């Protein structure tokens, strides 16, 4: 057996499970939804072919769609960087070997463990309510209190705060990444007289870059797909005035509340295109800033 054939064989042996699963459970539904996107399909009736009509309608006749796209882009581009910066900061603070730190890590992770249950929505209503702690703090600083659930922009920021608050998963991945940087690197830098900031940019950031890439891509994808927080906080409406009508929420409404599954499918494929292009761009730039130890220096 030639070594080339052998390495191909090993490769497919290892990734085989993924390919089988993909063929068995994923490809057909994906293609089905692609087909539906060119049809008028109300879930319970037979799909009717209408060509590109859904796609055209989206960008020409549906202001709510454009609005949901806008809201989602703000959510992603404000939320993801803030969340990651915050997660990295906390991860670095907690990257210490003391026993108490294990408790801190768990406590900092707790908000994420609560996840997407309705209890979160209630907590958030309490905190951002008229007499909630946020408004009390604002008032004490001499700023007028804000109707967080009543003003579209404020409500969107509240959603962004919620996503920052649940920073635990990114933090944990950063922690795992930080831990795999050999301590000897820092020691060597200290000998050279590097200060904290120099160490961060010369060692931490480059060594962490593969993990950073992972977090950026995954957080961007999942931020675009965000559904549950918007759903529970706005009680399923996406209000006020569609201010929290994230893309996925609008898609859900079209599909399952208005029974326009064809239109919802078209929305989904546009979303796929947007996210794929964005991910592609991030991957392309990663050549310049991601450093893999396995691929030489």
């Amino acid at each position, binding site marked *: 057996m030639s070594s080339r054939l052998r390495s191909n064989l090993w490769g497919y042996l290892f990734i085989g499970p993924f390919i089988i699963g993909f063929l068995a459970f994923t490809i057909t539904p994906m293609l089905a939804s692609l087909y539906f996107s060119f049809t008028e399909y109300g879930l*319970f009736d037979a799909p009717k072919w209408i060509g590109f009509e859904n796609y055209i309608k989206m960008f020409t006749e549906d202001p709510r769609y454009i609005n949901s796209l806008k809201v989602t882009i703000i959510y992603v581009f404000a939320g993801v960087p803030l969340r990651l910066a915050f997660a990295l900061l906390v991860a670095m603070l907690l990257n210490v070997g003391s026993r108490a730190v294990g408790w801190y890590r768990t406590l900092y992770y707790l908000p994420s463990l609560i996840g997407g249950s309705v209890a979160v929505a209630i907590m958030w209503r309490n905190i951002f309510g008229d007499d909630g702690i946020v408004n009390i703090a604002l008032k004490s600083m001499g700023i007028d209190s804000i109707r967080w*659930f009543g003003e579209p922009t404020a409500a969107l920021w509240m959603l962004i705060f919620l996503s920052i608050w649940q920073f635990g998963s990114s933090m944990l991945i950063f922690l795992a990444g930080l831990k795999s940087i050999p301590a000897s690197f820092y020691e060597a830098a200290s000998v050279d007289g590097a200060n904290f900031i120099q160490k961060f940019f010369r060692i931490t950031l480059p060594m962490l870059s593969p993990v950073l890439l992972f977090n950026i891509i995954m957080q961007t994808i999942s931020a675009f797909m965000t559904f549950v927080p918007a759903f529970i906080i706005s009680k399923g409406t996406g209000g*006020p005035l569609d201010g929290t009508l994230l893309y996925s929420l609008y898609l859900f409404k079209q599909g399952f509340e208005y029974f326009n599954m064809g239109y919802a499918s078209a929305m989904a494929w546009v979303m796929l295109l947007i996210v794929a292009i964005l991910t592609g761009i991030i991957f392309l730039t990663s050549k310049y800033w991601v450093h893999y130890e396995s691929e030489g220096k």
Partner: protein
Amino acid sequence: MKRKSLLLVFGMILVLLLAACSSEGSSSGSDDGKVKLRIAWWGDQPRNDYTTKVIEMYEEQNPNVQIDAEYASWDDYWQKLSPQAAANELPDIVQMDVSYLAQYAQGNKLADLTPFLGEQIDTSNMTEDYVNGGKIDDGIYGMNTGVNAVGFHYNPELLEELGLGSEIPEDWTWDDYKTMSDKAVAQGAFFDTHLRPDVFFDYYLRSQGSRLYAEDGSGLGYDDDKLFADYWSMIAEQVEKGATPTPDALAQITGIEDDPVVKGEAIGIFQWSNQFVGLKQVAEKPLEIAPMPGPGTSDGLYLKPGMFFSVSQNSEQKEAAADFLDFFMNDVEANKLILGDRGVPGSSEVKEALKDEVSEAQKQVFEYVEWAETNSSPMGAPDPAGAGEVIELLETLAEQISYGQLAPEEAAESFRTQAEGMLGQ
């Protein structure tokens, strides 16, 4: 030490997995010649508990039938139902809401119950309007489990305190509503909290001899946009003068628990009669029910099916399912467990028997609905397919009007063009 704990963990995992496998095996097999029905509903803890008991009661009387219950919360329920419908895997009996009935019936997912009426399902104690609540096109696609009627649920103590009399008269009008609101505002109280756009605009239209949707569901049911403008101008004025909280203030409210009425900041709340019991439970205040403001109250009011039980088209046991529905609607003992939780029952016999069983608050609801029976008009066709989207459109426009971003006249026009498009599909 460490090894021991590891072994322990593995042992636990094994036991759990085995338990899971064995329990799965026992529930799926066993073919003992029984008729098996699946029934699904949405609901909370009390409803799940009593409905389970009703099922047990039925199984006791019909030992050849086994009924498996599948329940979930409202959101989860609908999430579950649409794929089941698409895959023709619906339970034999499904609980339906007015807003979804047309969609499922016209999608051919529900069975027409007409052949079972008078056979398995005894309707002799129900009015024709009651049974027709589940009518879509020419078939009955859901058995009404009970009715509700809108009204004004208010706090008479606060009313008196504000010098507005001891009770709201049965024949009050929108003009009374406005003048009473002025007086309430002058003393720093809200008169009411909010009128759900679709429900109360529809009421207003009906009281003027129109309705929100055309009977055949193909478009809007009113021709004069002035009706729209009049109604929403009135609502906008109420918000502006402070008789109704602004929409941003309303958005801050979590639920009925911190509603202005409960906190004693507003006199009352316009809502469906089935919501009265919950309101009274949280408010811990005396509360009364008044009808809607006139003129034209009896044209505007109608008895709305609280929910339905439908039989699915893919069911292979439609007769058996219909027989259970009959039990649920007509059995007095069963209804002593249900106690009007799914709306005021339609069977006069059941209603009579429940009078002494229900709570104080539920009694007020029964009395109001009884009054409404003779002071209302038939409901007409339920919400057409596409209504969900129209309702949201109306809510958005109403919000914009209340925020002062949109004049009622403009909204009227915009509503007509967009809604006709949604319904005309």
